[in-house]
C-alpha cells in the first residue's frame, strides 16, 4: 500500500481496482520501465539521425504500457518471445539498456555481440527468447516453449507478443490451435496498434477485434485499452495465472497505437496527422502519471525523479554503447554452429 496518511487518502477519489492492485514498488518499477523504454527509443532514434546507427528500427513509442503491463505479472524465469518492435518487451523483462544499445550500435558488448541488431535482441538469461524479424515468427516458437515447459513439468509461463498484422499469418492460426488443444501455458499478447505497416486493420481483417478470432480455438480472450497500464496488467495477470495453473492459453489484445512511423522509411501516407495527435493525447506514460498524482500515489517530484533516473540510465547506456569495441572481423563466422 502507498505510504500516505489516512487523511490524504480520504480526499482522493477511490482508486479503480486495476490501479489499486498495483503495489507501490510495482507501480514505481512500471513507471521506471516505461520511461526507460521511451528514453531508450528516443536515444536510438537520435543516434540513427546522427548516423551512429545503421539499418532500420521499429519504435514502440506510445505502446509502452502494453509491453510493461503485460510483462508485469511475469517472473524472471518466465519466457517471452518478442517482435520486430521489441525494445519495450526486452526492457520490461529486465534487460540491460546498455547492452541493448550496444547491440544497436553493432558492438561486441551488445546482447548479440553485434550480430543481431535491433530486430534480434535476445536476453536469454532474462527469459527473453528474442525479438524476431519475421512477422508472426515467434508464435510457433512459443508453442514449442509451451510444450517444453509442460514436458519438464515446470510452472513457468511463456508470453508471446505479436502485432495485429501478424494475426493474418498462417503461423498465428497454427500456433493458437496447437496451444489450445494441448492446453499449453502460453499467453498470447496481441499489440493491436491499428496498422500493419500501412495496412489498416479495418482493411486486413473482416472482424473488428483480434479477440474475435480466439473463439476459433476455444481460447479465452480479452481486449483492453493498451495504453492503460493498470488494465493491461490486470488482464495479463489473469491470463498468466490461468496459464501457470494449467488452465491453458489465453489471448490478450492491447489496443494501442504507434506514434512513430513503422520504420525509418515511413512517410505516414496511410494515416492523418489528426489521428496521430489524438493518440498522442492518450500517451500511456503521462496518463498513468496523471492518475497516480490524482490518487497521490506519487508526488510530482517523485515522478520527476523516476524520469530523471531513467534518462540517466539511458545516457550512461549510450556512453557505454559508443565506447564499446566493434566485433573482430576475423571472427566473422564465429557462432554459426554451436559445439
Amino acid at each position, binding site marked *: 500500500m502507498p505510504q500516505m496518511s489516512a487523511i490524504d487518502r480520504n480526499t482522493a477519489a477511490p482508486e479503480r481496482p486495476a490501479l489499486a492492485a498495483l503495489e507501490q514498488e510495482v507501480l514505481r518499477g512500471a513507471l521506471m520501465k516505461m520511461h526507460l523504454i521511451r528514453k531508450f527509443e528516443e536515444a536510438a532514434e537520435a543516434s540513427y539521425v546522427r548516423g551512429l546507427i*545503421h539499418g532500420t528500427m521499429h519504435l514502440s513509442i506510445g505502446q509502452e504500457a502494453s509491453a510493461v503491463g503485460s510483462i508485469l505479472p511475469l517472473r524472471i524465469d518466465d519466457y517471452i518471445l518478442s517482435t520486430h518492435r521489441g525494445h519495450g518487451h526486452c526492457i520490461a523483462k529486465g534487460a540491460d539498456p546498455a547492452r541493448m544499445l550496444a547491440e544497436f550500435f553493432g558492438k561486441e558488448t551488445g546482447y548479440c555481440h553485434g550480430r543481431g541488431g535491433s530486430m534480434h535482441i535476445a536476453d536469454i538469461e532474462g527469459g527473453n527468447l528474442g525479438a524476431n524479424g519475421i512477422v508472426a515468427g515467434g508464435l510457433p516458437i512459443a508453442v514449442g516453449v509451451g510444450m517444453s515447459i509442460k514436458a519438464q513439468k515446470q510452472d513457468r509461463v511463456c508470453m508471446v507478443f505479436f502485432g495485429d498484422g501478424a494475426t*493474418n499469418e498462417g503461423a498465428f492460426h497454427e500456433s493458437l490451435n496447437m496451444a489450445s488443444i494441448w492446453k499449453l501455458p502460453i499467453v498470447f499478447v496481441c499489440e493491436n496498434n491499428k496498422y500493419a505497416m500501412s495496412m489498416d486493420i479495418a482493411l486486413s481483417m473482416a472482424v473488428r477485434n483480434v479477440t474475435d478470432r480466439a473463439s476459433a480455438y476455444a481460447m479465452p480472450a480479452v481486449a483492453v485499452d493498451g495504453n492503460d497500464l493498470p488494465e493491461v496488467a490486470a488482464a495479463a495477470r489473469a491470463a498468466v495465472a490461468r496459464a501457470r495453473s494449467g488452465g491453458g492459453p489465453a489471448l490478450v489484445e492491447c489496443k494501442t497505437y504507434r506514434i512513430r512511423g513503422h520504420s525509418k522509411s515511413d512517410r505516414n501516407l496511410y494515416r492523418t496527422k489528426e489521428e496521430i495527435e489524438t493518440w498522442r493525447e492518450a500517451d500511456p506514460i503521462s496518463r498513468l502519471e496523471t492518475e497516480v498524482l490524482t490518487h497521490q500515489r506519487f508526488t510530482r517530484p517523485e515522478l520527476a525523479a523516476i524520469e530523471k533516473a531513467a534518462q540517466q540510465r539511458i545516457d550512461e547506456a549510450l556512453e557505454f554503447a559508443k565506447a564499446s569495441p566493434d566485433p573482430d572481423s576475423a571472427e*566473422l*563466422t564465429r557462432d554459426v554452429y554451436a559445439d
Partner: protein
Amino acid sequence: MPTELAAPEVATRELSYAEAIREALAQAMEADERVFLFGEDVGVYGGAFGVSGDLLQRFGPERVIDTPISELGLAGAAVGAALTGMKPVLEIQFSDFVTLAMEQIVNQAAKIHFMFGGKASVPMVVRLPGGSGTGAAGQHSQSLEAWFAHVPGLKVVQPSTPHDAKGLLLAAIDDPNPVLVFEHKLLYKTKGPVPAEPYRVPIGSAAVRRAGRDITIVAASIMTLRALAAARRLAAEGIETEVVDLRSLRPIDFATIAKSVRKTHRLLIVYEGVKTMGIGAEISAMIAESEVFEFLETPIARLGGADVPIPYNPMLEKASVPQEDDIVAAARRLVLEGIA
C-alpha cells in the same frame, strides 16, 4: 583492346532501377488489363522500397492491391489468378519472406503445367527484393535465388541494371510460366539508361558487359557492378577481364559463358548468395562437365557469400559477401598464381 561494351540501346534518358521497374509495371498494366500488382504495402505506402510509388494513384486499388501479411496465401492467390486468365505480379516485401511461400511456388506454380499434362499454365511473376548491405541483419538480407534455380518449372532472373530491371520484368510478365525476379535492395537507387518504350530482355540470356582476354568473371546482380569496378582496377595492372552478367539463373545461358571461357581459359564466378550451393556451384559444374573443361588453364574459382547468416554489424556485414577488393584479389590470384 578490352572496352566497356556500349549499352545495348542508344537511350540517353536515365532512370533508377526502382523507377525502371515501376515503368515496366505501368507499361504492362497499360498494355494489358490482365496485369495487376499486389503485395504488402505496395499501394498507399508505395512499396517498402518505394518501387510501386504512385502506381496506386495511377491504376486504382483494383489493380494495385494492398494485402494482409499472408505470404503463403498471396503466392497461392497469384497461382489461382494466373490459372484463370490474369497476369499477377506479386511483391514479396523482402525475399527472405519467400520462405513462407515455398509450398505454393514450388509445389503448385512450378508443377501445375506439367502435372496437368500441359493443360493449364501459370503466368505469374514474383518480385523479390534481396541481398545484404542495408544493416537489416540475418532475416532481411538473404540471397536465396539459388534455391529456385533448382526447381524445374520456374524461371529465375536477377537484373543488375535499370535497363535490365525493366526489360526482364516485362519479359517475365509476358512469359507463360512462373518467373521469379530477384531485385537487389542496394540497386534500387542506381541509375542508368532506360529506353522509354516497352522492350524485353530475353530470359535465359547473359550479357557480356566488358570484353577481356585473361579471365572471365561471371557475376550476378550487384556483383556485376563490383566485378566491373574490379575489372577497371585489374586493367590498370594489365589483367584484361571479361565480365559476363548472368541475368538469368534458370535457365542459365551456358553458351555465352562457355564462349567466354574458351577465350580466357580462366573462370571466376562472383555471387552474393552463400558460396556453398550457390549459383556459382552450378556454373562451375556446367563448365567442368563440358568440353570447355579442356580449355581451362586454372581451377575454377568461386567468390560467394561466407558461410554465415548476414551479420548486423556493418563491417561484418560487408565481410560476409564479396566486395570489390575481394574480386580483385581473387582474379589476381587466379591469373597470376593459377590458384582459386
